[in-house]
């Protein structure tokens, strides 16, 4: 008994000792030897995260993304000094953000550069291509977003699902082709989400926040999390031939749903930030592109008997998040939530892709065959061609 207790204490101690040394080292570096490691001068840095055009006012969200606290001294519009208010105050600790309010009667659809000058005289700026009134959260606009989300998300997915009876009737080889096609579609969507995330990170997130690494981390976490829980789920429910394809269909629907949430976010934000004049053409492009998502869900469930309402639910799971995305993106846009949703979607999509490949491998014992290889290739080509429309 005594022995066990002793060895336990040893175990805990051996786990804690490195921590103790780590703390001692940090205290030493911040304390007595703090002057030792300072090479060069730390430069202040801020990031202008958001510029909104309100009635007679421009609102600028500024974050201190540098290594030291900063003081904001001045604001300008198109390089002309303007009086401004700053809330809560002009002193920014590291990572703190403030709102700068510049009274200014701006003109719709004209370009503006907003500049913020710090107390050391260094100026940071952000360019807006065309000033557009900031969106106020009203019901009318929420409705408008819901309609866009329906056209871009729900309807195309449902149309894609209409290929279900067709896929049901075809032979095994052709069926494998469609499953492989789904893999190609998903692979494209996953890469697309990652690239989108990297772009947002590059444009709107300061280097201090490691946006790229956040994307990779979240993608991997989402992939591992879903993979793990899917394995647990399928092993617990004693697997019947019909439940597994449906489970895969559900997973695809969830993955695509997360992806569409990100897509909706991008659309909502683009409208909200005035970066895009949303044309019918763009909506048609998105709709065509997203029809392929319906095929992706339809393929794995085609050989099973699924009640129609279950299929509709899958369609909704995949498509409806677009609406939610446009609301979040339009009313409460933040580049951080955008890249988190996009990378969660990417992780989910890669996970589903892997599951379908595994499934194909289990039934065929090999992946290198005409139907599968051509399916993946055609899937990616379809996605590429329809993506040009967007």
């Amino acid at each position: 008994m005594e022995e066990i207790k002793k060895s336990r204490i040893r175990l805990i101690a051996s786990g804690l000792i490195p921590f103790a040394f780590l703390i001692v080292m940090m205290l030493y570096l911040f304390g007595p030897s703090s002057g030792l490691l300072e090479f060069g001068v730390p430069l202040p840095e801020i990031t202008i995260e958001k510029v909104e055009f309100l009635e007679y006012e421009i609102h600028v969200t500024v974050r201190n993304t540098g290594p030291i606290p900063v003081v904001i001294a001045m604001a300008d519009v198109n390089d002309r000094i303007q009086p401004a208010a700053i809330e809560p105050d002009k002193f920014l600790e590291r990572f703190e953000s403030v709102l700068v309010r510049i009274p200014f009667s701006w003109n719709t659809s004209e370009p503006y550069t907003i500049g913020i000058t710090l107390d050391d005289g260094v100026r940071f700026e952000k360019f807006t291509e065309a000033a557009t009134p900031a969106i106020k959260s009203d019901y009318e606009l929420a409705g408008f977003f819901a309609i866009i989300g329906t056209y871009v998300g729900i309807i195309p997915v449902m149309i894609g699902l209409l290929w279900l009876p067709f896929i049901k009737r075809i032979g095994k080889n052709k069926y494998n082709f469609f499953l492989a096609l789904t893999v190609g579609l998903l692979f494209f969507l996953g890469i697309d989400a990652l690239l989108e995330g990297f772009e947002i990170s590059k444009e709107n997130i300061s280097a201090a926040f490691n946006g790229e690494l956040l994307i990779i981390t979240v993608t991997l976490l989402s992939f591992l999390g879903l993979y793990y829980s899917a394995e647990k789920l399928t092993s617990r429910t004693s697997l019947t031939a019909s439940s597994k394809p449906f489970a895969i269909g559900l997973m695809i629907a969830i993955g695509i749903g997360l992806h569409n949430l990100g897509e909706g976010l991008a659309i909502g934000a683009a409208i909200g930030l005035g970066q895009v004049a949303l044309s019918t053409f763009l909506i048609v492009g998105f709709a065509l592109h997203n029809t392929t998502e319906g095929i992706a869900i339809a393929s794995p469930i085609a050989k099973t008997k699924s009640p129609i309402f279950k299929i509709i639910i899958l369609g909704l799971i995949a498509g409806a998040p677009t609406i939610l995305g446009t609301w979040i993106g339009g009313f409460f846009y933040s580049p951080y939530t955008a890249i988190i949703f996009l990378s969660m979607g990417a992780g989910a999509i890669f996970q589903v892709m892997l599951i379908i490949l595994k499934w194909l491998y289990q039934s065929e014992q090999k992946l290198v065959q005409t139907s599968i290889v051509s399916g993946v290739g055609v899937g990616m080509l379809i996605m590429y061609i329809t993506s040009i429309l967007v």
Partner: protein
Amino acid sequence: MLMLTAIIGISTIIVFTSFSEAQLEQKTFVTHSGQIIKTSGDVLDPLYTASTVEFDPMRYLREFNYGRVSQLSDGTILREFTIIAEDNKIQEISPGVFYNVWTFNGTVPGPTIRVTEGDVVRINFINNGSKSHTIHFHGIHQAEMDGVFEPVGPSGGQFTYEFIAGPVGVHPYHCHVMPLEEHIVHGLYGVFIVDPKEARPQADEMVMVLNGFDTDFDTENNFYAANTIPFYYQHHPIQISTGELIRIYVVNMVEFDPINNFHLHGNLYQYYPTGTSLVPSTFTDMITLSQTERGIMEFQYTYPGKYLFHAHKVEFSEKGWVGLFLVQETKESSGE
């Protein structure tokens, strides 16, 4: 335990009340267009907020230095000045914006040196900076007094510039050590006035140095001003009287931008380029000045009120080179 609870309780109350007071305290400010903005935060307003900065443009405006005067054996007037250069000062050059200025006698611009044509001018120059500096006067003098090929070493280097004042007019002086642009834009310049032997008519005289500051070192000025502090004479109007002759010695020291200009509202002025002639060359409300181009403006106001003066290159005026004359009715024969 009880003690601890009490302390936490009291501090919570203190923190909470101060927080709620901060919330209640609304600051207001008015914009150009008359719009009133309320905020619970700070106001960033170099345009209208009267703030105290180290350098006082109002004092500089009418401050002329005539030197220590003595007479040489032949009867010539000798004027002696001591000018000390420094380059380590951090000065608030616009409310809340701090910049490393290089100075003659502690200010940008340096002191206005005023002498009469034919005087012997002796400048005891001391360089207390960390780099070499000189003083190069525009005007007529011997080559070795030109302040170009005789750099004065840092940390106490000395040089005595001596020359006979001339020609009549308004001239700049500035450091002429390479890289020249760096030494000028940091503030090593000032005004040198040579009066004619027969003095100009009595007037309310002022000096305006048109200058700018490139605070982020991108070879573009972030601020412009008449006498260093942006918008200063807008929130501190220059008070003058109707019917009184106003004489402005204006010197353009703006770097990077090829030209500057000076527009006066509600009036026109007689302009004497470089001040070398006693006859004005033009009667106008707008002159264009290149680097170190300068002259004398003379005018008087008939009607009282507020009148703007500014660069008509609007970018400059919207970055600080703008001011106001507050013209007041002259009290005629008061108390007589």
